[in-house]
């Protein structure tokens, strides 16, 4: 789950991490009110994507009139596919230096890692590549968290020793926030040193582990798929779905198998319209729901279902396919490959319903690409 900048800053503030004063505006007039209340402000497009600045999604406004003009320009823009519906108006900061502070899970080290750099701002990834020594890292023990001496050491290694007293609580609060929200990634960038010597989080990112959402049922993040009705619908159906740019609808169980199915479709000269993983142990209704979703995509010219059951049972899959075929009145060719747990029963059910399953994924991919090509002629 991802969050918009202002949602992240609300959480920072609640966790004791200073952020600039700000207000949300959905219209240019609301931005005028914000400028009236706050003085000179930065007006920032609220979209769940990076690179807003370069796209013109951030503007400074010294007066309410300037705020109106800037907000008018930004509201309604499309940035990386996301329409700007809200802007965050916050007190403009007099910044003397910009740092980077982030936390992510390092899958190789299998630990959370805190990252601190005296060279913050937009180019942090470039810094990481060109001056790796400018990026100080601290792998926290997952039980102990970052200890005071480790945080001190991190700060001195980043060359920020003189700011130790101010930075250490920032780092501890960031870690506590990450833990309490099961954050996969949390970033303060830039972490700004202002003219008056204070530290303030002028931008932030937060992404929460979807697996841990059951612990955070009251959290509402950014809807990062609201501009794609199919992705939104898939989310509602709790299906792991990603839209792609081809014409073969792909349904499978297990990310590796689905990814491999995409590869096979491409080898056969086709291109997948989507990635859809029904996961392990899916019931007939899930298969039904997945087929219904794919069938509603006008780009789809053929559907490939590739199931190798372990925890998923062949009979459940077959029932879902049969019911969906009957209920949906499919007009595009459907190719099913079914093997694994309860394979015999599943295949028998399919045969009885007039669907002949393929026995290998390659054969199934070949057939669906062929049939889709014929159907399109």
């Amino acid at each position, binding site marked *: 789950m991802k969050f918009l900048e202002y949602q992240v800053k609300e959480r920072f503030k609640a966790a004791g991490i200073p952020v600039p004063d700000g207000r949300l505006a959905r219209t240019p007039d609301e931005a005028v009110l914000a400028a009236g209340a706050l003085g000179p402000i930065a007006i920032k497009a609220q979209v769940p994507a990076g690179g807003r600045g370069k796209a013109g999604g951030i503007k400074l406004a010294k007066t309410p009139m300037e705020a109106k003009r800037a907000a008018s320009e930004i509201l309604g823009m499309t940035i990386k596919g996301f329409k700007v519906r809200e802007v965050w108006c916050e007190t403009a900061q007099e910044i003397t230096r910009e740092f980077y502070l982030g936390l992510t899970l390092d*899958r190789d080290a299998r630990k959370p890692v805190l990252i601190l750099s005296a060279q913050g701002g937009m180019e942090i990834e470039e810094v990481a590549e060109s001056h790796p020594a400018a990026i100080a890292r601290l792998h926290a023990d997952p039980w102990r968290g970052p200890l005071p001496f480790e945080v001190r050491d991190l700060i001195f290694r980043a060359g920020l020793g003189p700011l130790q007293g101010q930075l250490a609580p920032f780092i501890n609060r960031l870690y506590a926030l990450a833990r309490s929200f099961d954050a996969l990634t949390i970033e303060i960038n830039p972490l700004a040193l202002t003219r008056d010597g204070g530290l303030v989080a002028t931008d932030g990112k937060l992404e929460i582990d979807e697996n841990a959402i059951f612990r955070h049922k009251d959290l509402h993040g950014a809807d990062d798929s609201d501009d794609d009705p199919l992705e939104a619908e898939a989310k509602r159906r709790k299906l792991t779905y990603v839209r792609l740019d081809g014409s073969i609808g792909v349904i499978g169980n297990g990310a590796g198998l689905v990814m491999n199915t995409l590869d096979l479709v491409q080898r056969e000269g086709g291109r997948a319209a989507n990635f859809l993983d029904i996961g392990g142990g899916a019931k007939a209704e899930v298969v039904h729901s997945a087929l219904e979703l794919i069938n509603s995509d006008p780009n789809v010219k053929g559907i490939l279902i590739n199931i190798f059951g372990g*925890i998923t049972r062949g009979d459940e899959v077959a029932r879902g396919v049969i019911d969906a075929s009957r209920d949906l009145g499919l007009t595009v060719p459907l190719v099913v490959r079914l093997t694994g747990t309860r394979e015999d029963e599943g295949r028998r059910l399919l045969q009885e319903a007039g669907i002949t399953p393929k026995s290998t994924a*390659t054969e199934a991919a070949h057939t669906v690409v062929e049939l889709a090509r014929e159907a399109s002629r």
Partner: protein
Amino acid sequence: MSILLARASRVLVQGLTGREGSFHTEQMKAYGTDVVAGVSPGKGGSTHLGVPVYDTVAEAVRVSRAEVTGIFVPAPFAADAIMEAAAAGIALIVCITEGIPLYDMVRARAFVLDAGVRLIGPNCPGLVTAGEAKVGIIPNHINRQGTVGIVSRSGTLTYEVIQGLSQAGCGQTTSVGIGGDPILGLSFSEVLRLFKDDAATRAVVMIGEIGGSDEEHAAEEVIGPGFGKPVIGFISGRTAPPGKRMGHAGAIISGNTGTAASKLQALKRAGAEVCDTIEEVVAATVAAVGQPSSAAPR
């Protein structure tokens, strides 16, 4: 011979009385696995599927002397189940459960490491030593006893490879699905080292996927001239669009490592034979082990 699991292994099932636990325990028993105990807190003293049930793993281990556990408990409780097994002296933990919060796993993995215990998974299909025993959910009928070791990050692709090899007459020693989650127990490197030392294993198939850099590390650290056995490699997700997430966070592409290209290159550099399709994997493996194993399929 084989690695990690054998006919004599005494197996515990955590979450035995649940729906998945029950179904797969029956399958494991049908395959010949010696399931000696189950754990379901509050159901201690009962019997389920002919297996005695205990309240705690500590008690189950004390009474049954189980050495291996298969975990089928729901995601919110699975990390705790892993740690309970590690603390009770289980030597090999196989966690099938999918969807465990990553911070839970980070902690559980540190715990398991401290306890000096092996963990496979989570979010994995488990492992089979062909013709001997199974812990997990790999379908029984596809395995065939032989000389090929399999290690894979993908559950369902593992089945593809096993089935393909078995149908080609090429059986397996042990097939290990290490799981697709970002935070895992055993890595490719660790399983490959075990295969290296297993006399019965004559070739190893390694099925990777995009994301992380475990494949690269295995290529650099383990595979190579010293490995002494052919390695046949395969990476799925080559046509996945960069940056989009594919189900497991494991498929997030990070930095320059983790891409299919980086992994394929590392495997080639280490001397592994890299294949484009599962069919090619099967063909290359059959060629590598000489002739099909003569053992009967089961």
